[in-house]
């Protein structure tokens, strides 16, 4: 790779995606026969201090390909990106997003706004999904330092970006997780309540959706739980997450495999 110098009229600006397109660093996207699995559940819930995200760890094809996949990654200090859909494209998507935000910051000496990051991803999702069966649907959540609030942005298959003020889910477990969230969400959730609700919604999805991995007590692998607040992206440690899922599991065992009349 030579020195990428451009004339003022052909300069790709501070967008790494634009530069990667110009320089041919991206894999060519083309239609081919491929299976698009949406097997995943990732949840984002807004609460008074930020956003909680919970994501399952299972990669599913015709069989379980992996039990410890990370579907939520920090895109930068105050932003998290989760993916559902084709794993290969999803990983590339996360790399592109992480690098793009940092690239912009270095080029312009100022960070992109959270809304700027959300909008930036739209055409990338669109270009991928409309030209290939290897679909990727991301979920972006972050702490907005200029408005001092946690925010969630979801995307449709065509790259449309929508802000959600309560919660959002992606992946095949959505109907089950969403039902639990709709019943349990309140606008005044605190951190503990948001974590509890997120874990419960993921438990529901893992229970009913064959492509979502619930808590794996045998292998000691649990869904990922993170918070994004004014302190930045923080991942809960495995023991903490294990205790939360054990508690839910214990209650379910007591009430015979169902929630038992209350959302718990």
């Amino acid at each position: 790779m030579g020195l990428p110098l451009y004339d003022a009229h052909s300069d790709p600006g501070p967008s790494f995606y634009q530069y990667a397109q110009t320089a041919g660093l991206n894999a060519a996207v083309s239609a081919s026969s491929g299976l698009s699995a949406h097997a995943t559940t990732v949840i984002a819930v807004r609460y008074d201090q930020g956003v909680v995200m919970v994501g399952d760890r299972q990669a599913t094809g015709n069989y379980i390909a992996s039990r410890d996949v990370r579907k939520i990654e920090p895109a930068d200090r105050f932003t998290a990106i989760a993916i559902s859909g084709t794993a290969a494209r999803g990983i590339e998507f996360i790399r592109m997003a992480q690098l793009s935000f940092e690239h912009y910051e270095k080029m312009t000496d100022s960070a992109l706004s959270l809304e700027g990051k959300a909008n930036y991803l739209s055409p990338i999702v669109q270009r991928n999904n409309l030209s290939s069966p290897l679909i990727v649907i991301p979920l972006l959540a972050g702490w907005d330092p200029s408005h001092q609030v946690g925010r969630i942005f979801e995307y449709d298959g065509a790259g449309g970006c929508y802000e959600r003020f309560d919660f959002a889910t992606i992946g095949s477990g959505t109907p089950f997780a969403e039902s639990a969230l709709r019943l349990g969400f309140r606008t005044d959730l605190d951190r503990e309540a948001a974590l509890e609700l997120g874990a419960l919604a993921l438990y529901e999805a893992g229970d009913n959706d064959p492509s979502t991995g619930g808590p794996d007590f045998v292998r000691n692998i649990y869904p990922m739980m993170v918070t994004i607040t004014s302190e930045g992206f923080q991942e809960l440690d495995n023991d903490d997450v294990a205790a939360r899922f054990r508690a839910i599991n214990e209650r379910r065992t007591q009430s015979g495999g169902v929630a038992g009349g209350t959302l718990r």
Partner: protein
Amino acid sequence: MSNYFYVSPEQLTKDRAEFAQKGIARGRSLVAALYDVGVLLVAENPSASLNKISEIYDRIAFAGVGKYNEFDRLREAGIRWADGTGFTYSREDVDARALANYYAQHLGDMFTEGQKPLEVEILVAQLGNKIRPTKLYRIAYEGTISDESRFAVLGGDAETIRSRFAATEEVIHPLRETLRNAVDALAGPERTIATPELEVGILEDRGARRTFLRLSDDQVSELLR
């Protein structure tokens, strides 16, 4: 057919060098130096937003003096090159020496073949780790590249500043002393430089992947106190 007068290569090179030197001498100078746990970059820069010092990659910084639009384009190309290389291969494959060589080739090409030579002098600094050394690569307007193991001075008055700084930097100091000596060397005995006119950046391990940090006026004042 129009008439061209013969100009000897010696004369042409001399004229171009003079032209570039004159352009560079119009701007203020810059000092880059190692301190005990990092690399310091200090520029005299009256502008708070048109930077001479910038982050390139996790452990690489850029500094330029001379014509702003010319070195800023080189800075942008450096960030693109580094991010592109890291994206294609791996983050640890991004090496300052490779980037410095590209810069040297480009400046050399512009000096001999361009409409006019670039009126810039640039520096690529790398903070070392287990696999790479800490280095300062200084690249002159005609593409001469030199690797400095302790410190480098860029700009019009480089020789004077270099001798002033060398006198105080016989050993590698902590950040505070290094900054003080660099600012004194830039100012000279008859002058003081106000903090807002200083642009200061460092490369230092602080437990994160990215090591570059731009110091605020308050941080600089505190260090110079």
